């Protein structure tokens, strides 16, 4: 049955499926609280997530298969919307979730709180899917919290691990602060416009802000703070290195890929829909300029700090901050005057997030594998791993080079298009900063590859005692996606651009 003929309420099916999966997991957990039946728990979670991936992909392709953009379906009094953008990000989030769940199967083999873990992940994923579909500042906030709260718990799920609990604390505290700022920002925007529905906000702004420009401006900056927290952009990034480092690696993967993408989708939607740049810039609220500042600072801080890390996971954490900077170009390079251009920029950013989702998840899952082996965390500990684990190391090399933006991997194409779009919009200097930092990133990414492939182990061969199937499958799948995204880049970018175009209409 074609997707168009389904009733409207089914448009949120990916979210429903995830929510239902979470419920099933709760039920299982409540029937047998001490279950360590990994197959059942992880299986349920994965099946549910994959179903969600399938449905989301189906919807997305159906949405983008027509001549123009597909329909924009709004539900619950316009509080929730399903369009190309939301489906696009739903695909990102659910795919990453599926990969993470797959890897968790082995990673958490000895953890006593399996059911909690899986249900928390699924719940967070649900929140993220809802973030992608939020069409009102209220739903934005609620779904953001729905995604955040399980994340806090997930980061500190290793109860006996000091790192995990420290990471959880920091993540939570900064998160709480940020959400306070964010909600205060919402209250100010509401004050200035009298509405929380994005399109209504835009409509209100169209008629002028009634002397509330100041409030609006402060509100917008605070909103940006909230988004910046979620996307780990400087200066709201402080939680990220610690949270990613301390959290179990699959959770780090989940947070740095899915959560970041979800943060970006609300930023995209809120700023594009609610604050049309040409309108608000006239009021002195040039948010594109703010994002430019943020993008530059984020790219620089993330990449430079990553360059000097000795702990691989922490390096990846910083690199993920750097990538937030690249993705921010999608908002920073919006000009407001030219919807075609802006859609290209935004689409490029979306595409980068998609590709980034694959490669970054893969990279963190490799860390998960290494943690599983318990060989250590520093570059030195990684030396010579390629001898004993060539396939995983090959995949890691793919991730690293792809993250660095080298062909023939998809990270190259997405960066290429992103810089292209930025230069096209006239922001060549943004692209220049991106390019320079990206070259620097090559240095630290290649250090990983060097350690894996070029260096000899410090003493003997590293202790690699098992080849956990789940993590391996997840890593190989992520690598395959990273590579295959290049040939499929055209399709993906078309979808992203169409979705972005629809956002601007």
């Amino acid at each position, binding site marked *: 049955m074609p997707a168009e003929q389904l009733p409207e309420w089914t448009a949120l099916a990916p979210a429903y499926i995830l929510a239902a999966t979470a419920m099933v997991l709760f039920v299982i957990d409540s029937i047998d609280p001490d279950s360590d039946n990994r197959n059942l728990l992880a299986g349920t979670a994965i099946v549910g997530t994959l179903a969600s991936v399938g449905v989301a992909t189906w919807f997305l392709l159906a949405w983008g298969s027509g001549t123009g953009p597909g329909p924009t379906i709004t539900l619950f009094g316009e509080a929730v919307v399903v369009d190309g953008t939301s489906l696009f990000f739903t695909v990102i989030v659910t795919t990453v979730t599926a990969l993470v769940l797959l890897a968790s199967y082995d990673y958490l083999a000895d953890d006593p709180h399996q059911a909690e873990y899986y249900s928390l992940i699924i719940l967070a994923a649900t929140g993220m899917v809802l973030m992608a579909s939020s069409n009102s500042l209220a739903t934005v906030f609620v779904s953001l919290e729905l995604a955040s709260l399980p994340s806090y718990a997930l980061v500190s799920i290793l109860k006996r691990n000091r790192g995990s609990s420290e990471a959880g604390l920091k993540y939570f505290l900064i998160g709480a602060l940020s959400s306070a700022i964010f909600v205060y920002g919402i209250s100010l925007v509401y004050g200035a416009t009298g509405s929380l529905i994005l399109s209504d906000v835009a409509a209100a702004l169209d008629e002028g802000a009634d002397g509330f420009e100041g409030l609006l401006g402060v509100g917008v900056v605070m909103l940006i*703070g909230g988004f910046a927290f979620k996307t780990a952009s400087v200066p709201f990034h*402080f939680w990220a290195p610690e949270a990613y480092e301390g959290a179990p690696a699959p959770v780090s993967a989940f947070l740095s890929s899915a959560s970041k993408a979800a943060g970006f989708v609300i930023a995209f939607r809120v700023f594009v829909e609610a604050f049309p740049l040409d309108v608000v810039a006239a009021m*002195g609220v040039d948010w594109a300029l*703010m994002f430019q500042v943020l993008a530059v600072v984020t790219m620089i801080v993330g*990449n430079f*700090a990553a*360059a000097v890390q000795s702990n691989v996971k922490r390096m990846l954490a910083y690199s993920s901050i750097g990538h937030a900077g690249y993705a921010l170009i999608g908002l920073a390079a919006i000009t407001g005057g030219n919807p075609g251009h802006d859609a290209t920029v935004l689409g490029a950013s979306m595409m980068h997030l998609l590709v980034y989702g694959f490669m970054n998840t893969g990279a963190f899952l490799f860390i998960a594998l290494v943690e599983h082996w318990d060989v250590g965390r520093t570059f030195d500990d990684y030396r010579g791993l390629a001898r004993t684990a060539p396939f995983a190391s090959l995949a890691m090399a793919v991730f690293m080079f792809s993250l660095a933006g080298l062909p023939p991997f998809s990270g190259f194409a997405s960066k290429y298009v992103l810089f292209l779009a930025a230069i096209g919009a006239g922001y060549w200097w943004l692209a220049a900063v991106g390019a320079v930092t990206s070259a620097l990133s090559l*240095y630290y990414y290649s250090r990983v590859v060097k350690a894996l492939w070029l260096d000899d182990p410090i003493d003997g061969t590293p202790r690699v005692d098992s080849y956990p199937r789940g993590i391996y499958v997840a890593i190989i799948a992520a690598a395959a996606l990273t590579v295959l995204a290049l040939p499929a880049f055209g399709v993906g970018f078309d979808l992203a651009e169409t979705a972005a175009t629809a956002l601007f209409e």
Partner: protein
Amino acid sequence: MAAFDFAPAIALLPFVSFLIALTVGKHLPKKGALPGIAATAGALLLSIWAVVAVAGGEYHHAVLYEWVAAEEALSFHFGILIDPLSAMMLVIVSLIAFLVHVFSLGYMNDEGEIGLPRYYAGLGLFTFSMLAFVYADNLLMAFMFFELVGLCSFLLIGFWFRERAPPSAAKKAFLVTRFGDYFFLIGVVGVFATFGTGMFASVNGFESFPELAEAALAGEADVNTFGFAAETWFSILGLLVLGGVIGKSAQFPLHTWLPDAMEGPTPVSALIHAATMVAAGVYLVARMYGFYALSPTLLAIIAFVGGFTALFAATMGVVKNDVKQVLAYSTISQYGYMMVALGVGAYVAATFHLMTHAFFKALLFLGAGAVIIATHHEQNMWKMGGLKDRLPVTYWTFLVGSLALAGILPFSGFWSKDEVLYDALLIGLENPIFLGAYAMALLAVFFTGFYTFRMVLLTFHGEPRSDHAENAHALGWNVKFPLVVLGVLAAVAGFINMKPVEDLTGAEILYLEYWLDGEYGAVEGLTYGAYNTLVADVSGLGAADIGPLLPGVIALAVAVAGVALAWVLYNDPEPEEHTARLGAVRDLWYNNYYQDEAQVWLARNVTLPLSRRADTFDQGVIDGVVNGVGSVSLTGGDRLRRIQTGLVTNYAALIALGLVVLLVAFAVVGGWF
């Protein structure tokens, strides 16, 4: 069947022998000598045939191969030009090459050398390159084979590579000539850029660059003179090409490689340094004489360089102890005479001396080689002596050669050298500036006579002064045959152009002059007469009008004086060195005026430190900047990450600070309040 149909084979035959020696040489009897002899004999016959054909009134030009297909009037091709000059040179080169091959049978094969295929391959390639250079029809081709000649000299001089000195000498030979060739190459490029052609002769629809230059000077042709006046530019070009000439013909100051090059096997010395490679430079000037004749400045420079070199080298020859060294310096000196001749417009005299010198110097080298074989590779003259009786054939031929070199009537050297001096005097009397060149050349005659006979006396006369000299062993036919042939030639070759005799008797016996003047056949414009006109008309060098007798007598007297002094000092069964009497001058001469030291100093104390400095600079500064950028980035990154203090309170503060900064900044920018 015309003689010229086989012209390409003149050069290609030795090339084939090169290939044979290189590939299958070690399986052949005599290790490649026989193909070499056959090839050079063939080349010789074909060259003689070509001479006969030219004498029949023809010349030959053919484009053999387009190196780069012609385009925009720039033609890079290989072509053959056989006119009187090149035909004569072909005969000389192939003859000497043939004789050297034969001689090598005795010198190398009989001595049980290893690596003979390499030796004969080198000889073959050398002969090939030289012959191809000789009949090249354009400057580019000439340059290319000029360079190949240099390569071969490297290979042959360094033949005994297992020792220290020969490779070093080989390196020096190539490097110093390369330095000259650098200028030559600029000249070649400049000629092509200026005239669009490097042709020596206007034949077959080509225009030659000397004629274009002449036309340009006359305002009849338009060429790119690169912003200079035409005459200046042509002088510059000529000088640049002259750089190659000075290098290859071992003229001051690029002569230093030649004495060192004596480290090569003696037959090679004979081939390379007597008759061919060194001759290449002078030949080149003769080949494009129409161009040099256009500029009085150039002519004066050539004459002066030649005169100075002639004297300069002769003085150094006076004190040498190694028989080959004496010959080496005499070679440099004799080429100086040729340069003098070319400088004063005496095209015939230069060519004449080139020819006679080829014969007698090859003879002397081979003779020295024969002595060296006989004395079991002894080269120091003070350890010889008394060889006259043990090696009669060698002695008599060597003596002929020495007399020719010293310029004693009636041996060939006298006639040619006399003509050089005579012509120099003629020009010099009219244009005093050339008189200096003449004076130096004349003075050199004295030294020539002296060192030549010092050498003869020390080597062959007196008592044997070493066991080797005492036990000199007999020589085979393959050694004697070339000596005899060359001995005859050295004695009689002068008769083809006896200027004083002609003057005295009025008989028309200046065969060489007629030959070069196109009496028998030549390319128009490439004749002695044409050049003479150019020198007189364009360069404005007039000639005095005096007979050749008096100058001849003077030259002869000076030469005899030199010989006589040598006789007085060294005709003694136990000769003394006598050089101590020269005092400081002896050291100066013995050390070659410290020329080598100067060049070594230049290389070791200027170039090398400069390059070391550059290397230090490169490693330190340039690479330092690169690495510096890297470490600055890392330091920056390290500083940057220090804001991540680990204290969540600080994070909150920084977030708040960031927010406030953003708020304030944008509030100000946006004018919110």
